[in-house]
């Protein structure tokens, strides 16, 4: 019998060869880091630990009656750590998130010991060219969460980092410790201090280029900064990558709802942020 053979031979949870899984994690901690952002730490099974910087998970945020969340919510992996041997999980996956709506409100309600289903890892992560010695990271808002693991990746590859972290106000700058821990030179710019203008960021980036310490540019979290970096990269002939956002349903490439216009191979294509992205070459996205 086909059917019997099926369920005898395989379990619903996919075995090792699957690239992604519905990882059922255990909440280790879930705290605010400042007035706007929370930090979620999960004990996760092995598949989740294979995530690379720039990849994301699709989170099953269960709302409550009166504040329901129906679809999953995409979230970049902020940090990954192998197990410290203390518990059964194979390691730790962390997210840094901003509470904006029903899904993130549901996340904010997660309590230690609770379980949380995170589908992934998904999408294309950042990649480093073996020739690069110094990169510049320009992050704003929640983009900091996405770019933090890239800093760690650079450190391990022996690549120097100049990080320009932009936020509305100084207390909203995050991941600075993560960046500095891996030896990044961090510059903070903020709206309240008047330092986060496009002009000032341009000055900072061009300064690194002038010093010969900008083999590649990375960005996430601001369309304004994306346009700036696209312009500089084009003028200076410097490569780079950007992590994009888009509303998602499936997160796996099936529903084609998450497209962004991208220039690739001389064409303008609608590519899926969840599958061909979220990381694209800096010059590719049609920004607006």
């Amino acid at each position: 019998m086909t059917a019997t053979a099926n369920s005898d031979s395989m379990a619903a949870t996919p075995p090792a060869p699957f690239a992604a899984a519905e990882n059922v994690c255990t909440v280790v901690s879930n705290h605010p880091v400042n007035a706007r952002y929370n930090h979620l730490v999960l004990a996760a099974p092995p598949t989740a630990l294979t995530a690379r910087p720039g990849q994301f998970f699709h989170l099953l945020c269960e709302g409550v009656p009166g504040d329901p969340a129906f679809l999953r919510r995409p979230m970049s992996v902020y940090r990954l750590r192998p197990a410290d041997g203390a518990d059964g999980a194979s390691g730790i996956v962390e997210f840094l998130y901003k509470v904006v709506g029903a899904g993130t409100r549901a996340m904010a309600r997660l309590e230690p010991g609770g379980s949380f289903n995170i589908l992934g890892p998904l999408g294309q992560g950042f990649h480093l060219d073996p020739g690069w010695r110094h990169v510049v990271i320009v992050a704003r808002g929640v983009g900091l969460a996405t770019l933090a693991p890239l800093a760690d990746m650079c450190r391990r590859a022996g690549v120097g980092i100049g990080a320009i972290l932009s936020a509305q106000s100084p207390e909203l700058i995050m991941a600075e410790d993560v960046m500095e821990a891996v030896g990044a030179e961090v510059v903070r710019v903020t709206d309240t201090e008047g330092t986060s203008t496009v002009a000032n960021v341009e000055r900072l980036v061009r300064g690194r280029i002038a010093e010969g310490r900008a083999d590649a540019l990375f960005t996430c979290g601001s369309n304004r900064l994306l346009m700036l970096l696209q312009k500089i990269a084009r003028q200076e002939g410097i490569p780079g990558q950007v992590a994009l956002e888009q509303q998602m349903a499936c997160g796996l490439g099936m529903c084609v709802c998450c497209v962004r216009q991208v220039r690739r191979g001389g064409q303008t294509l609608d590519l899926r942020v969840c599958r061909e992205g979220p990381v694209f070459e800096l010059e590719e996205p049609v920004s607006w």
Partner: protein
Amino acid sequence: MVDLSVQLGGLTLANPIMPASGTFSPDIADVIDPNRLGALVTKSTTLGFRAGNPTPRVSETADGMLNSIGLPSQGIDAFIGEVIPKYRRFTPPLVASVSADTPDEFVTICEKVSIPAVDAIEVNISCPNLEEGGRAYAMRAESTLSVMRRVRACSDKPLWAKLTPNTGEIANVARAAEEGGADALVVANTVLAMAIDTETRRPRLGNVMGGLSGPAIKPIVVGMVYQSAKAVGIPVIGCGGIMGTDDVVEYMLAGAAAVQVGTKTFLNPTAMLTIIEELEALCAAKGINSVSEFTGAVVVEPEEEGLPLFA
């Protein structure tokens, strides 16, 4: 030993669980083994290139979601050359879903897609017919009959007609599809709907209107499956809001021979496999030898059935 296999208009499926068009692609192989599904159903393809609708293309509602993807498509040649081979890496019967703006186009695309790699054609007649001012073919019995007749004449493949719930006459449409030569019916596509963001005052979908799917629509579609199955002799495939095994049994009791799972796969890509396992366990526990015994087994005394005079 439970027999999960089902007969569907010329095809035998190992089990009655398959994906709904547009909610599935070979990409799912990252998470599950598609070989365990009863069949594979492609996203609807069109004859030529289509860009699709502006974003946002999805939005969530009470126990459901809206989509207005807009049938983006590389066109039938890329579909046959590039998409089909990706599906054919897997063993279940392959159902190619096709959409077209006009009956002529439907004929051309069905002819083109009638290749050996394709086991059945799902004719998405829930899409707008430009010759009827954009009204979907399956909103009326007449246009359903005429388009299905034309398609029937041009292909020997098993033909599944995918009906729309946006009609007041589902039983007549179902009969027309059967008369037009359909081998099975898929009931149904999404329900026309809309949502507005009261902050921005803008529609939540780039295309303004979209299609509602998910558990919210299940009772509507279960009612349509019941009416359709009573109206026709061909198998009916239930589709709308299936979240778990109990929903599958409910659809089968209402008259479905098999089901398609859509939105739930977005929430849990593993759900279809879980359902297949649970369905087998349920049959075993209840001493049911063949899952088909559920089909149409709802208990309705004739005198109970009043007019649809609700309220």
